[in-house]
């Protein structure tokens, strides 16, 4: 090729140009500087600080409720790390994943409860559970030899759904060699009184013990995944996710690796399931239905497919956020803060911020006057407003007596307004923004606060939409190119 020095200085070696994309992404300002300083720390510190914080949680005078959330989070992290191997690396859309979690839980319950009168030692039971779940994963992975993409998703979704049906209906199975039908799974009631884990004489009988156990397991799983990420197996998985045919021609046995991914992912899910069964001291089929699967997928996509810190953060958000929103006083604050911060981020100009918010406040008072003029019956501040925000919101928000009806109208108007705003120019959007902001807060206070359990799902959904719209690659994910 005669790479003379003149050549190499010429076309194609301009580092500055080539790194333009990275620079544009890196951003500027305070946020970027903090990010850079953080990434500059040794990785032991970067991983150690969050770890230390979670270990200290139970010793900072916290209660069982928080520990239960922590335990759920730990299980969820294990599941997300396992699913990441299959979906994040190998690109196999496995919608039956939750069945492995359920299978592990049921298998542990069968081996360590009165259901069959078996009370195997915990370690032995867990080994059996992990091995059988992995074998189940291998079996479910077999269609992936031929099926890819959407087709694999449909096939595995079927298995996932079938699992729940099977568990519900296997409470009276007639074996030919038995006189009576046999109860295998406890049907819709599940299996209760499952043994707690007991290893080397130590019984895990408190939330604290499970919390710490899960921290250890999540750390081990994270370290293992991190090592796999850059290894020959990790690279082989990622390349077959990119282009399976090219991977084959580059000495990578794609079929074997796909099956390995399914098997490993299932094994991890089985382990999580066994621990879940023993934490709960019971298993119930309704746990393993679609919502859990969707939440796990949301977590790994939110965090950034294939990125380990992303998977961990995504799982944390999806577990902790709905819990925070369970309490009206937290969710009220959270809503207002997110709304205000979101508006500031959207405006990207300090000059416009006071104008928009002043407009919003003015529209609130104008609305009050209009409502009063029409003669809509209303509640007094003392009747509805609670918490530290009461004096502020109480005098500004008009609270009609017919909260449900008027709230519903406002909600529909809000959704339509937000959807249509995406079509408008920036100037028009900014002119309309004060009204929409007022409408959002009005809807929130009047209608959504009435039903916190629905509201929290709405909010999580809205947050996902916003996050995915602003960062489609996930919080820590790298922007990806599908086909060029």
């Amino acid at each position, binding site marked *: 090729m005669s790479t003379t020095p003149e050549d190499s200085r010429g076309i194609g070696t301009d580092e500055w140009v080539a790194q333009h994309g990275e620079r544009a992404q890196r951003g500027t300002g305070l946020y970027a500087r903090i990010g850079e300083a953080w990434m500059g720390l040794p990785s032991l510190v970067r991983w150690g600080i969050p770890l230390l914080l979670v270990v200290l949680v139970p010793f900072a005078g916290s209660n069982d409720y928080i520990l239960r959330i922590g335990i759920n989070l730990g299980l969820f992290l294990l599941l997300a790390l396992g699913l990441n191997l299959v979906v994040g690396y190998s690109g196999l859309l496995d919608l039956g994943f939750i069945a492995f979690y359920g299978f592990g839980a049921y298998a542990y319950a069968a081996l360590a409860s009165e259901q069959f009168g078996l009370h195997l030692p915990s370690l032995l039971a867990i080994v059996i559970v992990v091995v059988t779940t992995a074998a189940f994963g291998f079996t479910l992975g077999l269609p992936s030899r031929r099926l890819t993409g959407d087709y694999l998703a449909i096939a595995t979704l079927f298995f996932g759904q079938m699992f729940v049906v099977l568990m519900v209906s296997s409470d009276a199975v007639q074996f030919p060699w038995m006189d009576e039908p046999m109860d295998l799974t406890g049907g819709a009631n599940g299996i209760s009184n499952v043994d707690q884990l007991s290893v080397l004489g130590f019984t895990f009988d408190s939330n604290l013990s499970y919390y710490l156990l899960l921290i250890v397991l999540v750390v081990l799983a994270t370290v293992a995944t991190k090592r796999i990420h850059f290894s*020959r197996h990790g690279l082989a998985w990622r390349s077959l996710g990119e282009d399976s045919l090219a991977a084959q021609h580059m000495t*990578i046995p794609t079929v074997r690796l796909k099956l390995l991914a399914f098997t490993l992912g299932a094994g991890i899910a089985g382990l999580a399931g066994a621990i879940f069964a023993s934490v709960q001291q019971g298993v119930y089929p309704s746990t393993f239905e679609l919502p859990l699967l969707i939440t796990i997928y949301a977590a790994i996509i939110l965090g950034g497919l294939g990125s380990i810190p992303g998977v961990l953060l995504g799982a944390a958000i999806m577990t902790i956020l709905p819990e925070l929103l369970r309490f009206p006083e937290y969710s009220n604050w959270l809503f207002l803060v997110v709304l205000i911060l979101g508006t500031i981020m959207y405006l990207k100009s300090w000059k416009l911020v006071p104008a928009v918010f002043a407009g919003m406040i003015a529209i609130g008072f104008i609305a009050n006057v209009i409502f009063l003029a029409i003669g809509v019956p209303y509640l007094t501040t003392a009747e509805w407003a609670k918490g530290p925000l009461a004096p502020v919101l109480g005098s500004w928000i008009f609270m009609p007596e017919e909260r449900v009806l008027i709230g519903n109208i406002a909600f529909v108007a809000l959704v339509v307004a937000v959807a249509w705003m995406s079509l408008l120019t920036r100037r028009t959007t900014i002119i309309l923004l004060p009204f929409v902001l007022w409408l959002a807060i009005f809807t929130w206070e009047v209608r959504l606060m009435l039903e916190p359990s629905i509201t929290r799902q709405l909010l999580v959904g809205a947050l996902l939409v916003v996050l995915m719209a602003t960062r489609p690659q996930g919080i820590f994910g790298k922007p990806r190119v599908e086909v060029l």
Partner: protein
Amino acid sequence: MMSGSPESESNPTPALELIDITKRFGGLTSLDALSLAVAPSEILSVIGPNGAGKTTFFNVITGVYTPDEGDVLLFGESIRGVDPHKVARRGVARTFQNVRLFQNLTVRENITAAMYGRTNASLFDIVFRTPRARREERENEERVLDALSFFGTRLQGYRLDQPAYSLSYANRRRLEVARAMATGASVLLLDEPAAGMNPKETQEITEIIGRLRDERSYTIVVIEHDMHVVEGVSDRVIALDHGVKIAEGSFEDVATHPAVIEAYLGRGSAARK
């Protein structure tokens, strides 16, 4: 047998031999009783109009298709019907007509991924970072730099850690060749390596193909439409049309062969000349 050190030229066994290969797709016979042999460290070019069966020819060798009749021998051993990843392990690596890199992997990762077949660390080794895993990591690192050094500074330095999709078109083609080299193969099948390149880049890739043979003793089969490349690199040229070998010999012989001119330009063109 394969890794890195192909047989010397005195070896009479061809590196690659096709014996009466026929491949049909329904009623279409894509390759029709095709026989040919490539000597070790030879550069063979395959030309022919669109639809002549050139890419099918590569797909039959690499195991994407199993031929309906005939046999494929690699250094005397049959690789007919062997899975693509095993063919690659036994020493045949290829590039693709429409570049198929692992787009979202970096340059370094693309090449390291192709070394899967020459490394042995198990998941256990990797998770517990055994000496074997660490040794292989170091070796891989050296091999990456070695494969890339072949292309001068084009794919080195900061580019090592850039995703493949961010590379220029010519660099993607170069990276694909480097990735094929990294498999440890001794036979390279290059499918239109100069497609879409400007004249200067075409000149460069021609020289690279020559150097691959001269410096690394690769056996190379090239499918190419650009006659400058074919003329520049080939020891021997084969022309295919409708799956049949219509001419074989030196570039001059084949380029002036009446059957070849007819295949490209239609009946009567040779006569009028």
